[in-house]
C-alpha cells in the first residue's frame, strides 16, 4: 500500500499545495501509522490526535479560502519531549516531571505553530537528554525500527525512530553531544545539529546550556532544510541566540556546488570504527570524488580529549541546571508522611524533602551526572576539572578552526559502531559515553554538523555519515549533503515493520 506516509515532507508539501491531499488526510495517515506501528517501536510518549486534526482542518480551510498558509503548510511534526508545550505534560523523559504541565510554549513550538506545522505528539528520550540509547527514559525505551531488539540511539531516540518508521515526516530533536546525529545514524535518517545559537533554546529543558541545540530530524537533507528554516532565527528570550538573518535553505540547495574540499580527520582511525562502517564511509568518499570533490586528510589533534572534556563540562552545567527540580515549587515530591516518619534526630525536614524527592524522582544516569558535575565544580577540584576542561574546549575549537582553513567540510563516520542491543551497555556507562566520540566535537566547538545515511551493515543496520562545517554555514552543509542524496538512495530505504 503506497500512501502519503511514503512521501518526503517536501513531496507532501507540494501535494498539499497542489490540492492533491488535505492536511487532515495527511495527519490521519500518520496517526493511523502510529497506531499501527508505535506499539512495537514506542517512539511517542504522548499524542495530540484531536488537537492535530483540529489544527489541520483550520489549515485546510485557510488554504481552501486562498488565505496565507505558513511554510509547513499543514505538515505533521513530532516533538521531542524536552520542549515545553502548553498542551500535555512535558516530562523530559523523567519521573521528576511526570505531571509537569508547562505554562508556556518553547520558542520553537511557537515557530512551528506559526508555520502551520501540525504537532502530532511528544517523542521518547533519555531522561533529561542524558544518554545514547533512550534506555534512560523513565517511560520505557524505544526500539530501533530496523531491529526491534536494538536501541534507536539517543537521547533523541523517539524522534529518530518515529521518522524512520514513517510515523512522522518531520521531527525535532536536541543535540548536546550527539543526541540528534547518533540516533539519526542508528535509525537511517537525516539529523542536523545546527550552529550553537542558530535556534532558540528558550523552552528547551536544559541539559548543558553551552552545548544544547535543537535541530531537525527528517527523511532527507531537503526536508531538514525546510524545518530548519522554520525554527532558526534570533529570539529576544534567548540571550545566546544569534542575531543573524535566516537564509532560505531550500533555495540554497538549488545552487550546485562547484569544487569543494572535504577533510577526513586522520585521528578517526585511532578509534577503530567498525570495518563495515569504515567501508561505507570510504564508499561515500568515492561518491563525493565522482561529483568533483577533493578529499584531504586533516588533523584534529585534540579529538582524543573531546569525550573527557565533554563529560566534565556537560555534567557541571547539568548539576546546576537540574538543581531547580527540588520538589518545592513543582515536580515530583516524596510522600510527606513517610518522609516525616523516617526522620531521625537532628534531621532537617527540608533537607530530607530535597534529597528524598530527588533520589526518587531522578534515574541513575541523571544522578551519576549530577554527582560528576557537582564534584567537578567543587572547591579544590574546579581548577583541575572544570577550568581545565574549558581550556581544552578552546583547543578543540582551534583544531576545527584550523581544519576549516584547509577544507570546506569535515567528513567521517557519525558513530564508531552501529546500533547495539537493548541492555547491552546499560551497566557500562563508559562505553555508552564513547558513543559520542565523533559527535561531541561539533558541540564543543559550536559548529554545525549533520548525519546522513550512507549504507547498511551486513545485519541490515543503518550507517551514518557525519558532515561538519563552520558555524553558520548550514547552507554549505545542506548543499554537500543534498548532493550526496541526489546520487544515492540510502535515505529512501525504509525498515519493514510489517
Amino acid at each position: 500500500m503506497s500512501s502519503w506516509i511514503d512521501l518526503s515532507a517536501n513531496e507532501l508539501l507540494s501535494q498539499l499545495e497542489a490540492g492533491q491531499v488535505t492536511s487532515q488526510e495527511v495527519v490521519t495517515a500518520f496517526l493511523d501509522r502510529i497506531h499501527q506501528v508505535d506499539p512495537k517501536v514506542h517512539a511517542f510518549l504522548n499524542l495530540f490526535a484531536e488537537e492535530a486534526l483540529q489544527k489541520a482542518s483550520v489549515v485546510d480551510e485557510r488554504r481552501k479560502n486562498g488565505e496565507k498558509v505558513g511554510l509547513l503548510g499543514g505538515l505533521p511534526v513530532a516533538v521531542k519531549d524536552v520542549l515545553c508545550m502548553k498542551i500535555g505534560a512535558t516530562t523530559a523523559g523523567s519521573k521528576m516531571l511526570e505531571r509537569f504541565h508547562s505554562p508556556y510554549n518553547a520558542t520553537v513550538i511557537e515557530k512551528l505553530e506559526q508555520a502551520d506545522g501540525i504537532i502530532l505528539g511528544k517523542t521518547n528520550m533519555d531522561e533529561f537528554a542524558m544518554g545514547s540509547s533512550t534506555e534512560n527514559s523513565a517511560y520505557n525505551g524505544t526500539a530501533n525500527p530496523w531491529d526491534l531488539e536494538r536501541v534507536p540511539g539517543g537521547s533523541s531516540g523517539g524522534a529518530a525512530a518515529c521518522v524512520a518508521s514513517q510515523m512522522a515526516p518531520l521531527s525535532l530533536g536536541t543535540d548536546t553531544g550527539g543526541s540528534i546525529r547518533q540516533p539519526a545514524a542508528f535509525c537511517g535518517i537525516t539529523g542536523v545539529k545546527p550552529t550553537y545559537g542558530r535556534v532558540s533554546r528558550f523552552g528547551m529543558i536544559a541539559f548543558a546550556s553551552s552545548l544544547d541545540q535543537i535541530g531537525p530530524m527528517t527523511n532527507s537533507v531537503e526536508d531538514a532544510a525546510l524545518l530548519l528554516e522554520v525554527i532558526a532565527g534570533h529570539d529576544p528570550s534567548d540571550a545566546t541566540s544569534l542575531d543573524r538573518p535566516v537564509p532560505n535553505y531550500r533555495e540554497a540547495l538549488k545552487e550546485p556546488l562547484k569544487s569543494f574540499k572535504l577533510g577526513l580527520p586522520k585521528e578517526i582511525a585511532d578509534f577503530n570504527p567498525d570495518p563495515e562502517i569504515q567501508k561505507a564511509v570510504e564508499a561515500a568518499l568515492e561518491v563525493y570524488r565522482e561529483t568533483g570533490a577533493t578529499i584531504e586528510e586533516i588533523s584534529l589533534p585534540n579529538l582524543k580529549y573531546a569525550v573527557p572534556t565533554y563529560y566534565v563540562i556537560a555534567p557541571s552545567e547539568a548539576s546546576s541546571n537540574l538543581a531547580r527540580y527540588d520538589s518545592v515549587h513543582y515536580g515530583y515530591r516524596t510522600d510527606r508522611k513517610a518522609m516525616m516518619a523516617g526522620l531521625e534526630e537532628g534531621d532537617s525536614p527540608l533537607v530530607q524533602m530535597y534529597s528524598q524527592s530527588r533520589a526518587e524522582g531522578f534515574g541513575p544516569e541523571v544522578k551519576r551526572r549530577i554527582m560528576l558535575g557537582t564534584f567537578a565544580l567543587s572547591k579544590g577540584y574546579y581548577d583541575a576539572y572544570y577550568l581545565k576542561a574549558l581550556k581544552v574546549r578552546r583547543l578543540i575549537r582551534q583544531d576545527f578552526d584550523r581544519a576549516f582553513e584547509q577544507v570546506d567540510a569535515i567528513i567521517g563516520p557519525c558513530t564508531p559502531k552501529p546500533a547495539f542491543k537493548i541492555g547491552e551497555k546499560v551497566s557500562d556507562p563508559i562505553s555508552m559515553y564513547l558513543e559520542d566520540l565523533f559527535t561531541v566535537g561539533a558541540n564543543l566547538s559550536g559548529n554545525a554538523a549533520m548525519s546522513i545515511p550512507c549504507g547498511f551493515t551486513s545485519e541490515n543496520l543503518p550507517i551514518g555519515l557525519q558532515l561538519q562545517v563552520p558555524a553558520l554555514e548550514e547552507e554549505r552543509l545542506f548543499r554537500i549533503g543534498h548532493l550526496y542524496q541526489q546520487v544515492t538512495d540510502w535515505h529512501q530505504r525504509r525498515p519493514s515493520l510489517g
Partner: protein
Amino acid sequence: MNATVTDAAYTTIIGLEVHTQLLTKSKLFCGCANRFGEEPNTLTCPVCIGMPGVMPVMNREAFRLAVRTGLALQGKIASFCKWDRKNYYYPDLPKGYQISQFDLPFCEGGHLEVEVEEGQAPSKVRLHRIHLEEDAGKSMHDESMGGRDSLVDLNRTGVPLLEIVTEPDIRSPEEAKAFLTELKLLLVYLGVSDCNMQEGSLRVDANVNLHLPGESGETIATPIVEIKNMNSFRAVERALHHEVVRQWEEWQATGKKKGEVPKQTRGWNDEAGETFAQREKEESSDYRYFPEPDLVPVTMTAEQIATAEAEVGELPQALRTRLQSEYELSAYDADVLVNQGKALVRYYLEVADACGDAKLVSNWLQQDIMRTLKERNITIEELPVSAPMLTELLKKVQSNELPRARARDVFAQMVETEASLEETMDAMGIKQVDAGALRELCQSLVDANPRIVEDVKGGKQQAVGALIGQAKKKDPNVNPGEVRKICLELIQAMGEDS
C-alpha cells in the same frame, strides 16, 4: 560594662556589605514588575519561578543604574564583566542557583568620604567591589519543626540587587553609621534606589573584629564575626557596639585568635540589645560558582562609560562644597540642606538664585519650610508653596513690602489654602504691601518711644510729631499723614490692650 572598653588598647576593624535593590521598572532577568507590597506570588512568571526551559535576559536599565552607582562611588567600571551562578538550595531560590557576579564584577575599587564628627576631617572608606545580582524570594518559616508549612513569596525573586562591599576601613560603630547614612544619601541622590530598610530595599551585614598589639609589637586579630538582621542604621551602630565589647570580653576569656575558630555569623536582637550566635551552617559553604552559560558577558565601551558618567549628576559632597563656596553658607547650613535630599536642594537653589540672598533663603528653608514638611509629613515636591511662589514672597520681604513676621503668616496661610501669594494677601487684607512695611516702621517707632506714647495717651496728640520726624529720617519717602494716623491707631490699640 563599657568601663573595660574605654581604656581598651585595641582597634576596631569593621567592613560592611550593603545590599540595595535598584529602582527599575522590571526585574533583572524577566519582564515582571519590580514592586514592593503586592499580594504574594503575583509578580512572577515562568522565568523568575525557575520553570524548566526558561532563560534569563539581562535588564539593560538595571545595568545602567549599577554602572551609575559605581561611577558615583569612584569605582573602576570593567570593560568586560560576566555572570556566574552561585549554587545553593533554598526554597526561596527556585532555580537552585542565584545569578550573580563572581570573579569579574562590573565595578572594582572606589571610595566614599564620610564625616564622622562635625568639624573633623572626613575619613575615606575604600570600597572593595560592587556587583549586580538577582534577589531571592522571601521565606516565612515555621521554626517549631513539623508544625505548619513554610511559606514562600517569589515577588522579590529576580529583583536587581547591588552588593557594595567595603574594605575593612571602618574604625568605629559611629563611623559605620555615618558611612551608611552618606551611602544612602548618595544612592537616593543618584535615583538608583529608595533605600528603604523596612521594605528590605537596603540591607546591611557587618564584619567586625579587633586588632590588638602583641607583646613583640605584632598585631593580633580576634576572630571575624559577621552580624546579620539589623534593620536600621541605629541598629547597626548598636550591634557593633555590643559586638566590640563582646569580642573584647571573649578575647580576654579565651585568647582565641582569628583563624583558630571558624568564622561566626551572629544575629542582632534589637529588643534585647545583643548579638546572638546563629545556627552554624552545616558545612562551610561551597557555592560552586561557574560562568552562567545562558547569558553573554557584558562589555562597556569608553563611550558608554562616558555616557553613564554624564548621568551621575551632582553628588552630596560636591553640593555641600558648592553651597559653601558659591552661596557662602556655613558648613552646618550646607550639610542640613544637602542631607534633606536632592529635591530640597534643587528648591533651595532655585529660590536662592532668584532672590540673591542665599542666607535668607537658607533660614527660611531650615525654619518654616522644613518644619512644615515635618509637621505635614510631606516632601518638598508636595509643598503647596512652589519655588517661584516662595521667591515672590521673599522678594517682598527683601523690599520691605512685607514685614518678616507678616511674611511668615502669609506663608503659613499659603500652605494652608494652597492659594497664590496675591490671593493670600488679599484674603488677609494686606492690600497695599507698602502699607505693611509702613505699619512695621510705625510699630517699631512706637515700641522704641514709650515716653512719647505716654504723652499721646495723656492727651498730647501733637507729641506724635516727634515720631513722624524719626520716620522721615528712616525713610524720606514716608507719608507723614499716614505715619501720624498709623501711630495714633497703634497707641490707641495699646491703650485698649492694657
